[in-house]
């Protein structure tokens, strides 16, 4: 996202404390994994953490660069496996997704929102203007006597006319349906890829809800 305010600092540009060299060296050996959220509800990103203790076993092999714990959207280093939650609903999502694609060897759509737009895509059936009016002008929860305003500011990413699945914006390599998929399902995919096996989602693990 571009911004004309000189003072604006994005989370991905924040200075970070240099890491202990030994720790950094051990991390450099590991397979880099990340999960970034676009227009979703956090459910899918939480499912990644829902692998519980299985995650600890995997940490010998992988290091997680991005997750819901920091919610930093941009990635500036090469990443082996990138998971993505949510579809594309604004211009900032497009930029994030394109940059993510450039930095990831394998990019995976996780969940209904990333795969087809999900709940946010329900607005695709109506005009964007009536959607915004319903939310901000004619909303039953609108503040009484306030002038109804549809938010517009250069710091607010411009909303896209429709919500798009990720694979309609960049090439996605694999898909894990579900709303959200179980932690175990994401684990199965991650474990296969980390250990050099092919992506394979068995029928019994495939869920659209």
């Amino acid at each position, binding site marked *: 996202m571009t911004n004309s305010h000189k003072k604006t600092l994005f989370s991905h540009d924040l200075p970070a404390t240099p890491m202990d060299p030994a720790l950094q060296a051990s991390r450099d050996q590991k397979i880099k994994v990340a999960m970034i959220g676009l227009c979703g509800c956090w459910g899918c990103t939480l499912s990644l953490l829902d692998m519980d203790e299985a995650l600890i076993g995997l940490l010998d092999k992988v290091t997680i660069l991005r997750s819901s714990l920091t919610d930093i959207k941009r990635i500036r280093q090469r990443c082996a496996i990138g998971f993505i939650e949510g579809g594309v609903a604004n211009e900032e999502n497009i930029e994030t997704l394109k940059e993510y694609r450039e930095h990831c060897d394998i990019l995976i759509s996780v969940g209904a929102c990333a*795969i*087809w*737009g*999900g709940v946010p895509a329900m607005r695709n*059936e109506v005009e964007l203007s009536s959607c915004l009016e319903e939310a901000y002008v004619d909303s039953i929860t609108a503040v009484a006597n306030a002038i109804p305003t549809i938010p517009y500011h250069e710091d607010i990413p411009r909303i896209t006319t429709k919500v798009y699945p990720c694979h309609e914006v960049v090439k996605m390599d694999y*898909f894990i349906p579900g709303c959200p998929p179980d932690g175990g399902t994401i684990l199965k995919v991650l474990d296969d890829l980390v250990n050099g096996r092919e992506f394979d989602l068995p029928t019994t693990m*495939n869920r659209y*809800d």
Partner: protein
Amino acid sequence: MSIQITLDGRPVSTQAGANLVDVAAEHGVYIPTLCYLKGKPCLGTCRICSVSVNGRIAAACTVSVSDGMIVAVDEPALADMRKALIEMLFIEGNHNCPSCEKSGRCDLQAVGYDVGMLVPRFPYRFTPHQREVGAERIWLERDRCIFCQRCVDYIHDQHSGQKIFTIKGRGSNARIEIDKTLADQMSAEQVREAAELCPVGCIIEKGVGFNRPIGERKFEIKSVRQRALEDDV
């Protein structure tokens, strides 16, 4: 009359005139279906059961077996074609499974899992459909109708024999309609029958929604394939 056909390269003995979907199931070969209901007159609308019969593609539910027939089901190209048909149904309607009352007991969803659909190869269309909520105990969620015609052909008014459901319009203008007067005269059992008969979540019984916990729903207990092969629909 006892005859022999070749099913996926295997000789199989069966009775002349039997339905190909049933014959295949009896011999352990699952052919996915959405509109076909064993024992009811064939509709042949959904085409999901497309297989090769004597080298030509045919909807298996419309085929009565005859001696010497050569049938192929489990070939990669045929499986991919059936998968494409399923994918088309998903993008033609608006199938938001996470918010659907039928989820977990929906034939379309269950067959989607069986054919291994993760994401349709076609772009989503998001065509708006007006839902019909006018009848007292039934509502039609038209986003999900696949035009199988089960409701049209199998549900009739118990007194007059008239159709209660009809399809109006053609092509992209086609929509399922309900005769509200007749619908309001349906017995509770018939309302339930209609809702269960609908292979997707289009015919919905009002007041009955997410009444079964996730993990205990129809196709979570037993997959659509298992049910078909065990004759347990």
